[in-house]
């Protein structure tokens, strides 16, 4: 038993030495993760700030002015133009100058005072559906609060039932809160996959794999020795992203570190399994690199990071069951933001476990049986 552990230990040490000895490869493993976490934290956001809008106020009333000032004071919108006729609406939207145009009809104020139902026309540039959707939601919220105030101050009976939406876990609907915890898994995922995909392929290409196979080490030992170092490096990378999320972007963490790291370890094992299988299958580094690239893009897209899995067509939803990232993102978001325990997200652990249980032994079998 001791001899076995010792062999695995020296293999891991060799792998780490081979990866980390070169100063440039140390930088490649650390710096991009750092830069990417800041980049995604700042750049990848669906939040609306400074949305440009234009107004066509045909009623020129105190009420319309009041509503506009409510809009202005929200901090979300800023006015770029005051239109004078309906012909100018298309121009303002098409040029991209305004994301939306607010049109108050000529009888807006009169109808309102008369207690009639009044339409407020909002024209949105839906070419960017995300921004348009958020803008519409903001306008709705502002109008709703206006309605309420109006009814209170001008009678009209009890205020009508109004929808009061409150978002949980991300009360301000900040995408950063949603994005950054996902990054803890995804950023490490890319490099772990690449690192392991190259590991066996490099040794095969350089002939060192034969030298390894003639030693008394068994394929299982080699597999473990090859798997542990990338998992360690992946965990370090995840920790970096987590530190940036926690201490720079101040996204509060609700769950426990232990649950988070246990989940991450499960995730890394399944990633390394996929990576090693790719590596054992490839004849050389070029092939391994190609497979890893080919896989990483769809795995990212189908992870639910950019678009919800439940919106995908059924066959693709089924495909995502082979995607460790999908479950890791769900797991980490829930542990990080909701603070649930691993027991609650056991259904995320099962697919990760199954992926690892299939890919790792397959890779180990391929070590000796793949003929190059």
């Amino acid at each position, binding site marked *: 038993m001791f001899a076995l552990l010792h062999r695995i230990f*020296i293999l891991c040490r060799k792998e780490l*030495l081979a990866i980390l000895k*070169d100063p440039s490869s140390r930088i490649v493993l650390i710096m991009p993760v750092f830069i990417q976490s800041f980049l995604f934290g700042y750049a990848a956001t669906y939040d609306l700030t400074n949305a440009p809008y234009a107004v066509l106020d045909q009623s020129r009333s105190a009420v319309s002015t009041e509503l506009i000032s409510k809009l202005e004071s929200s901090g979300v919108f800023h006015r770029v133009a005051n239109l004078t006729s309906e012909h100018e609406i298309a121009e303002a939207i098409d040029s991209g100058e305004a994301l939306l145009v607010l049109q108050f009809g000529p009888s807006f104020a009169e109808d309102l005072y008369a207690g009639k139902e009044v339409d407020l026309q909002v024209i949105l540039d839906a070419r960017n559906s995300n921004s348009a959707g958020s803008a519409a939601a903001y306008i709705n919220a502002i109008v709703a609060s206006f309605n309420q105030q109006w009814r209170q101050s001008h009678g009209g009976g009890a205020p009508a039932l109004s929808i009061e939406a409150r978002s949980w876990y991300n009360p301000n609907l900040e995408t950063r809160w949603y994005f950054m915890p996902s990054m803890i898994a995804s950023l490490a995922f890319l490099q772990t996959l690449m690192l392991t995909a190259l590991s066996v392929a490099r040794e095969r290409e350089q002939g060192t794999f034969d030298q390894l196979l003639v030693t008394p080490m068994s394929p299982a030992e080699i597999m473990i020795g090859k798997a542990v170092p990338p998992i360690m490096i992946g965990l370090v990378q995840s920790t970096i992203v987590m530190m940036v999320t926690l201490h720079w972007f101040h996204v509060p963490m609700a769950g426990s570190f232990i649950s988070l790291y246990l989940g991450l370890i499960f995730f890394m094992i399944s990633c390394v399994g996929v990576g090693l299988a790719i590596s054992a299958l490839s004849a050389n580094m070029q092939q391994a690199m190609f497979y890893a690239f080919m896989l990483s893009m769809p795995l990212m897209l189908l992870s639910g990071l950019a678009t919800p899995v439940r919106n995908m067509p059924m066959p693709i939803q089924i495909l995502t069951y082979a995607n460790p990232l999908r479950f890791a993102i769900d797991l980490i978001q829930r542990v990080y933001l909701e603070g649930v325990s691993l027991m609650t997200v056991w259904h995320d652990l099962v697919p990760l476990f199954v992926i690892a249980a299939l890919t790792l032994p397959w890779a180990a079998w391929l070590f000796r049986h793949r003929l190059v």
Partner: protein
Amino acid sequence: MNAAGSAVQVQGLHKQFLDKESGRTIVALRDINLAIPAGTISAFVGPDGAGKTTLLRLLAGLLRVETGSIEVLGVDAKRDPQQIQDRISYMPQRFGLYEDLSVQENLDLYADLHGVGAQARVERYARLMEMTGLAKFTERPAGKLSGGMKQKLGLACTLVRSPELLLLDEPTVGVDPLSRVELWEIVEQLRHDEHLTVIISTAYLDEAERCAQVYVMHEGEVLAHGTPQALSDHARGRCFMARSPSKQPSRLLQSRLLDADDMVIDAVPQGGDVRFILNEQTQSDALCLRKILDGARVEEVSPRLEDGFMVLMRAKLHHDKGETDASLAAVSLSKSVTGADACGGAARDEVMIEVRDLVRKFGDFIAVNSTSFAVRRGEIFGLLGPNGAGKTTTFRMLCGLLPATSGFLQVAGVNLRTARANARRRIGYVSQKFSLYGNLSVKENLEFFGGAYGLRGQRLRQRIATVTEQFELHGLERTPSGHLPGGFKQRLAMAVGLLHEPDILFLDEPTSGTDPLARREFWRRITALANAGVTVIITTHFLDEAEYCDRIVIQDAGELKALGTPREVWVQAGHSATSPLNMEKAFIDIVNQARQSAQRNDKEVASA
């Protein structure tokens, strides 16, 4: 100056490089003077790191001339390297063939690159195809050619235009003897037909012997130059053959002679006898020498280029080190002396490797066909054959790296492929290509592989110290192994292979591309190991090395063609048992006989 017929004139050439790792300057060439006559073949010979490649690259106008002058075809290389490149052809050690392109596509590509016109192409291709014998294979991807054919294609691509000077950097490394002969025929024909000047660098001294002029290089200097005859004369009167009366393998006498390094400069087995060179002070009838020879009959022979080369090298090393040539003789042979006794008698008869009807197919292709042999403890067993003969496939099956399609296979009593991992502890493996971790240091590699074989703690430190001493790797412990010079890489690979004291050592082409000095040193170690009871399986391209082996097999096209002691194989090749051995000839005869009879069979089948 050119009227005198010099194709190349070099005067006072120095070249140095800056080593980025250490920040030191390395002198690659110092005070080189050359005068190469037009229309001749000249050779640069010398150990690894002698500066042969650097010199060729300077002549090709690929490196900048800093100190000294180079004139190639009357053009100053400092002023107009482009013009030189337009008029010469240079084939580097690793020629850039595109492996996925066919033979024809490779030729076309190089013709396009050199701007050879359509008309000129037709004639040139026809001639190149005829010379290289590649006409049958024009559609085959270059990657699917054998090593020898690849080199021929490389040469053909180099020659798509008619150069005035041809520079070849070790063109025959890793090429089997048959292909070597063919390559040389092409070069000589070109010199004859086109009055081409050829400069070739080589590690094979028998090749250099065919050249008009030979430059012996060592650590950036030209030690001597002249005709092969003149260089051989450095050893005149000092070369002898010793015929051992007993049935002992000649390598035993050889290692005794080498041990007497105060008298003997060099000793190699040749034709079943031992060829040795005495130093200047020693007489052939000296008393202490007679004791070593132990009744062997001695006669003086005329020197070869290799003898002259060895004398020059020894004198140089002696001069540099101020003591006996450490690089050769320091091999601690305590093992060879005591080892011979330690492992005698019954143990020697133990069968270590047994192979019966071994077959390996790749799809329809039969790489190895019903091969059988057995190897006993302490034997040196050689697998010989041309490229693609099935040597490496056989070798990989023995090591357990490749499953056999059918047949029986046992190494140290087990099949390594299916045996428990521990059985592999009994074998050591040194592959053809350097296959240790290049960015790990010498010490880290030793520690890793030692650990992989279950050595640790005190025992590991002890073994590392022993092999470091044995293979003279002191002072290099912290050097990344990928940065070691070729000869040292090979020593490190051997050190790793022997770290765990295996019973059986597998060596795949260990001497390919190494210079004569390094090869001597290598074989000293191997014979010492065999004497100590280690079984050695070795594949080699160097036919003269077959004589170090106790027994050999010759394979061709997957078939076992001959098996036995070198002498027995010589007889199987159709020669008389008493005539002097020439393994290269035996090999070529056996392979040719086999191929001819195969062709006859094909014809009979076709006509039937």
